[in-house]
């Protein structure tokens, strides 16, 4: 047998919000060693929260991720309200759902058009793709912008919004602003439907694999702020008990911690959510999905992009529904009574389950904090996926092909390691 030993270093994995390095050893056409190294300079948020007042936490944790600040704010406020037994009004609950819809729209549209679509159409970047697909890219950034507008309506700005407080919102939007936004969303809705159909026409690799989906599930509504943690294998757990099944550990090759469910990898994010909650979607959306000839639950990880598009359409419908019913409340928040204890909160960030735990003293100061972001939960699954998918596609290929496929697989997870920087050093070692 000929001995082949090649070292490749590819600087910078594009279009992910994280710094990644992949080490791959291939021997006799089998992978003998695979490590996905995610490196984000540690910012040690869990430590810098210690000693801060609970009321500052929503503004501080937003800074973990510029792309999904709403998610961090939501998991935090739910945690404190559940510890303090705060009852919030249905107005607050609906506005939180609208706020979250805005972030899902912004984040999903950004990923589909600027980050993922260039992969499937063979372009280096979205601006390069825009020359051949001007309509699609323009539609994408306009949809993204409407998501930002929703976040701005309640938060003042779309990155690190300032409207949220424990108990509700600082401010209720004006009727005129709500009406203006509603008109824009209704006008754009047909294009969002078109976008979903367009996503279904992209040629996706047909690779099925076994994996366990994990998401929140609320029997009444598609999960965002509420529900238990459930899995495709029948798990059904209140969020306070999350740590009995899910455990994070540190691997030397990564600054994102690895989270495992009973010691095994699992998937969180849009595909996992849709796999576990398809039945809850409104019929009109189910009909469109059926027409697109893709069915859920799906075992094809490449359906993640389509799942994002489905959620985009769903959140557009939800936003329109909530804005149509909008009325100004007497007060946009409930008062809270501080209690010492452990606060647990879990919501669905655009990229999946985001779990928070805070130990709070009688003055409302944080004694300790644990935050488990979606990317650390997907990390073991990404390694497993790379191993399976690269093997299924054949390992006796040019390095460039393997590298391209590896990058595409990683981008399916829309990894956000700010919750992360940027480098895929790919080292393939053929023996």
């Amino acid at each position, binding site marked *: 047998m000929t001995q082949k030993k090649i070292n490749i270093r590819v*600087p*910078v*994995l*594009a*279009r*992910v*919000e994280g710094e990644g390095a992949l080490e791959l050893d291939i021997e006799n056409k089998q992978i003998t060693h695979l490590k996905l190294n995610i*490196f984000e*300079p*540690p*910012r*040690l*948020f*869990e*430590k*810098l929260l210690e000693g801060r*007042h609970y009321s*500052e936490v929503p*503004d*501080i944790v937003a*800074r*973990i*991720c*510029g792309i999904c*600040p709403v998610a961090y704010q939501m998991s935090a406020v739910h945690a404190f309200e559940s510890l303090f037994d705060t009852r919030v009004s249905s107005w607050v609950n609906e506005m939180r759902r609208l706020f979250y819809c805005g972030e899902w729209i*912004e984040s999903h549209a*950004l990923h589909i058009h*600027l*980050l993922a679509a*260039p992969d499937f159409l063979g372009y*280096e*970047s979205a*601006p*390069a793709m*825009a020359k051949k697909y*001007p309509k699609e*890219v*323009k539609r994408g*950034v*306009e949809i*993204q*912008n409407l998501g930002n507008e929703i976040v701005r309506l309640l938060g*003042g*700005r779309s*990155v*690190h919004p*300032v*409207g949220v*407080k424990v108990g509700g919102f*600082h*401010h209720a939007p004006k009727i005129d602003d709500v009406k203006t936004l509603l008109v824009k969303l209704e006008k754009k809705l047909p294009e969002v439907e078109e976008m979903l159909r367009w996503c279904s026409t992209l040629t996706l690799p047909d690779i099925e694999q076994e994996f366990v989906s994990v998401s929140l599930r609320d029997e009444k509504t598609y999960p965002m702020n509420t529900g238990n943690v459930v899995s495709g294998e029948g798990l059904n757990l209140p969020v306070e008990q999350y740590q009995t099944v899910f455990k994070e*550990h*540190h691997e*030397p090759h990564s*600054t994102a911690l690895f989270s495992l469910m009973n010691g095994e990898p699992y998937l969180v994010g849009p595909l996992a959510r849709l796999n576990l909650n398809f039945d809850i979607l409104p019929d009109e959306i189910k009909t469109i999905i059926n027409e697109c000839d893709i069915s859920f639950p799906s075992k094809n990880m490449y359906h993640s992009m389509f799942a994002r598009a489905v959620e985009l359409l769903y959140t557009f419908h939800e936003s329109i529904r909530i804005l149509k019913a909008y009325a100004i409340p007497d007060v946009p928040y409930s008062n809270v009574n501080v209690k010492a204890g452990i606060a647990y909160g879990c919501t669905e960030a655009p990229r999946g389950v985001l779990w928070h735990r805070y130990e709070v003293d009688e003055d409302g100061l944080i004694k300790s904090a644990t935050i488990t972001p979606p990317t650390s939960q997907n990390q073991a699954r990404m390694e497993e996926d790379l191993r399976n998918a690269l093997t299924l596609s054949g390992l006796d290929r040019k390095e460039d092909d393997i590298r391209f496929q590896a990058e595409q697989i990683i981008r399916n997870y829309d990894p*956000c390691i*700010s919750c*992360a*920087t*940027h480098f895929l050093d790919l080292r393939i070692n053929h023996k």
Partner: protein
Amino acid sequence: MSRAKVAVHKFSSCDGCQLAFLNLGADLLLLSELIDIKHFAEAGVIDESGHVDIAFVEGSISTQKERQRIQEVRKNSDYLITIGACATSGGIQALRNMNDGKAWLEAVYAMPEYIDSLDKVSPIAEHVKVDFELWGCPVSSEQVVATIRALLSGVTPKDNTEKVCMECKRKNNICTLVTKGEPCLGPVTKAGCGAICPAFGRGCYSCYGPSANANTSSLSQRLIGLGLLPEQVSQRYQLFNNNAPQFKKASEEVSKK
């Protein structure tokens, strides 16, 4: 005329300031016609070592590798602009500088010896010459576009130096500090956000850092007068721009009280 070559680099940060570009909507496509984006990893364009006219830098320096990389970025760019609180003043992660950074790392990671992390977090200007600073947590698209426009027109860019109070007056916001007794850092904070917090009835928490001539000792006195404990006042300065010299000094001064 050839288009100006631009790079956007990320160091230790949340990616939020880069969104000032990616959230431009249809204007992003227009912008990509005005300038030639040479490096912007999150947007898929990669050429970290090429020479550019303008480099935007997001994030602070918190690892060995970043300390080396910023030198390369400086070497490869004619005009270097920091965007946001992290790059300009160190960001919230600089809080570790006042604490035992090493102990923090050991508390989070089981094997801290594998983590490349410096004991202190520092802004870009501590390492290389910075030509222009944009403050904000995050910076806005307007700030970034105005800066590019100024540079393309051959004009020295300008950023706000006045206080948030001025923005409140122009927007007819009701003063939260005076009318509600709500602790507000507006009187010592650089304008630029649009005074969005006071507009929502809450006090400013200083995303944009210290303004010119910030009278922090007078404000601290006022906040204590509202009933805040000195350490609570001190914590107000110790947020997203905790490492900015004026705020560092203000928080030290008030803790001595």
